[in-house]
């Protein structure tokens, strides 16, 4: 019996998609430049169905890819040709919230923002906030250790995942971690997070929740240069302030935002967004310090607001920046790299230089507090050679990040997009161990084959 026939025996009915037209919708994710038609798609509705589908794939030596909302920007849920996609978006229930323990137990297809919606009645929220939080799923966040603007204070997804029930690539089910913020014994949960689906599929996830801050104040600061904005970030850190977010947008990114969601940002070469949150008294005291500091930072203008609608508009402009760039050019590449935050200014100058050498425009939006850059490389795919030049520029920017002591990805993951760059950061031995860890868990490399690590079978001798 072949794998499709075996999946057919799981009683999925119309939830087993095999026609080309039906599976075509799953051919690519947020990284649209890559696409592959899977052989079939399983629309799972329960953990049991996920486990059963994994076992069938294992028995038939068939690679499989778990997929939530398909928002990966690194091609994390790109199907394998002849492989199976296990779609988890119907596993979307918040199973339990324990307000005293400040935890939520959720299914992997739960939308990120839905966790906060469900927790709000208890005065709690889920902190990691990728820009795609209205659509992206917790399972994908977990697999790629997603970040967001508010990581500066709260950390990444892995810092908020306490426990995982997972199915390993051979169908065995394991429990990692639990309901505590602490670990006894190795942090298996921490290792599973960010493993890009290579260790299996999360079936149930216990998340840490945080109290909703009673006060939030968001500052909009305009500068006549990116360097000045970058310096201000360093000064804020040096002053001992811990904002929940510090973001910078350059002129081009602001234009894009203005063209789409019209956040009404001041006209400037660089815009710094700083957000304070916490107790009312503390935010008020910190705001006085921050105001004084910003007034001395060479800013062209400083405004701040506590008004929820005004704050929401500021963040809407920032979080829509990626898609808004579509207003400025027919095609663009979203990059994701990290530099030490003290080298932000240098990095931006270097990106500008590399961009003009390549004859391409680059818009910059970044999580400045974390040194997490998101250069958006604009090009016109109809122009011969433009895409190649854009991709080459993207690679050069990543190489620069590593040269500066940073990382090739802060929050989008390696996926298929950055596999070739992993060796910029890791030695042959480092990568050999990662391959051994992967194959110890999944000898046939069935789970999300081809992401992050080059499969052994594809390696040239």
């Amino acid at each position, binding site marked *: 019996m072949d794998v499709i026939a075996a999946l057919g025996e799981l009683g999925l009915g119309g939830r087993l998609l095999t026609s080309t037209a039906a599976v075509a919708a799953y051919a690519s994710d947020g990284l649209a430049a890559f696409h592959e038609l899977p052989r079939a798609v399983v629309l799972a509705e329960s953990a049991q169905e996920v486990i059963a589908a994994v076992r069938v794939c294992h028995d038939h030596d068939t690679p499989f890819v778990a997929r939530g909302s398909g928002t990966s920007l690194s091609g994390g849920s790109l199907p394998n040709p002849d492989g199976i996609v296990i779609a988890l978006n119907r596993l979307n229930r918040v199973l339990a919230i324990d307000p005293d323990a400040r935890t939520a137990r959720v299914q992997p297809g739960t939308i990120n923002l839905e966790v906060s919606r469900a927790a709000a009645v208890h005065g709690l929220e889920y902190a990691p906030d990728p820009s795609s939080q209205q659509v992206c799923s917790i399972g994908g966040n977990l697999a790629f250790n997603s970040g967001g603007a508010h990581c500066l204070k709260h950390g990444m997804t892995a810092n908020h995942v306490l426990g995982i029930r997972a199915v390993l690539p051979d169908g065995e089910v394991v429990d990692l971690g639990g309901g505590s913020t602490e670990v006894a014994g*190795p942090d298996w949960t921490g290792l599973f997070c*960010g493993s890009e689906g290579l260790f299996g599929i999360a079936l149930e996830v216990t998340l840490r929740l945080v*109290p909703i801050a009673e006060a939030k104040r968001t500052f909009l600061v305009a500068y006549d240069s990116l360097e000045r904005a970058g310096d201000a970030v360093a000064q804020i850190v040096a002053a001992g302030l811990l904002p929940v977010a510090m973001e910078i947008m350059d002129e081009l990114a602001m234009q894009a935002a203005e063209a789409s969601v019209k956040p009404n940002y001041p006209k400037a070469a660089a815009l710094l967004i700083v957000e304070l949150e916490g107790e009312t008294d503390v935010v008020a005291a910190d705001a006085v310090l921050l105001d004084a500091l910003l007034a001395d930072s060479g800013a062209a203008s400083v405004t701040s607001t506590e008004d929820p609608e005004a704050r929401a508009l500021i963040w809407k402009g920032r979080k829509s920046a990626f898609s808004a760039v579509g207003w400025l050019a027919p095609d663009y590449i979203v990059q994701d790299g990290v530099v030490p935050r003290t080298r932000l200014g240098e990095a931006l100058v270097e990106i500008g230089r590399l961009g003009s050498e390549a004859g391409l425009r680059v818009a910059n939006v970044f999580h400045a507090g974390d040194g*997490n850059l998101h250069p958006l490389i604009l090009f016109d795919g109809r122009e011969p050679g433009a895409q190649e030049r854009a991709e080459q520029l993207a690679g050069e920017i990543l190489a620069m990040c590593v040269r500066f002591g940073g*990382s090739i*990805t802060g929050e989008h993951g*390696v996926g298929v997009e950055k596999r070739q760059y992993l060796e910029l950061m890791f030695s042959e031995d480092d990568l050999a161990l990662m391959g051994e860890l992967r194959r110890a*868990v999944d000898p046939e490399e069935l789970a999300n084959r081809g992401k992050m690590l080059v499969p052994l079978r594809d390696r040239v001798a």
Partner: protein
Amino acid sequence: MTASPENPAEVQEAVRGASRVLPHGAGTKPALSGVPGDDRAADGHGAADGHGAADGHRAADGETGVVCLDLRALSGIVEYDPAELTLTAQANTPLADLSATLAEHGQYLPFDPPLQAAGATLAGAVAAASSGPGAFRHGGVRDFVIGVTLVDGTGRLVHGGGKVVKNAAGFDLPKLMVGSAGRLGIMVRLSVKVLPAPRAHRDLAFVAPTRQAALELMGRLGRGPVHLDALELDEAGRLRVRLGGAEEVLEDRARRLAGFVGLDPADPVDPGEGQGHGARQDTGHSDSQGDGLDPIAWMPAGSRAVRVVLNPAQAAVLLDTLGAVPAPLRLSLGANLAWVAWPGDRPLEELDRRLTKLGLAGMPLTGAPGPRPLLGSAPGGAFARRIRAALDPDHRFLEL
């Protein structure tokens, strides 16, 4: 047998040349760094020379020929730029050295690792996952380790993570080292996130009328309007709370907190007597070292400090079970952790059985080592076994 490598290459050589290895730093957590069955590891806190089975020493459970790797020479800060809020150090740098250097720049180790005065090292804190009470505010050891260089069970030098605060490249080996008890790899270098230290502190204590009320109050305080730096229920049943932040608003916040606690008629509490109610004079350091919140200093002499990890909902049943022994304990980090003072004359196997029955996991830090460091029902299953086999295919590291 003991080896004292002075650099990573010598650690690799020592691992390759041994059939069994057990790393240690300052030896402040002999239950993890001592060879199981070796009586001389039982000397207690800070006894660095309590290590190492002599050649031919036959341990009770058959652990022979274990080479103890004294890694204290791997010490010193490698890179620290206060504006980066990150620090890279050789793995066995004493925590006290790190804290002192950070304090010069108004920063601290937010995971508040204990046993600093005894000489505990960074790698030891990571291996034991020993987050202190101050970790309530920003998170524990697992939330702050961002990079590691380690020697695996084949003697290979590998690194994972990086030096920047945000990084999603490759498997998260730094987190895997947290709680690994020297049984998954030998850390030679670590990078951690650090944060600005609260400029001042205020400690308060409350006594709830019943244990149930105290536990409920703990839950409410954890998600209450005033953000706490520490939230503990001590061995005497007192709620111990620490506020940290700017001095100018601390008094108001303390009043607000007391109001929050007192206003709910369902949870009447009175301020505790004496115990830190009011201002904490000392603002020179930002952690719980050597003060009333120290997680180990309160324990009766001769008891072993055991970390037990729990979900706050499991606190009552743990208190019941260990109260019957009796083994006093302090609930830490809003009841996500218990510091158990396990009586020295009771075998760890008994605690192991009790924790297993409750579905809880723990790890002893002080006192003589048990047969294995992990007590109770540790999760991980097949995933844990497979990862261990990849990191240590020749079984050079001791049992977890």
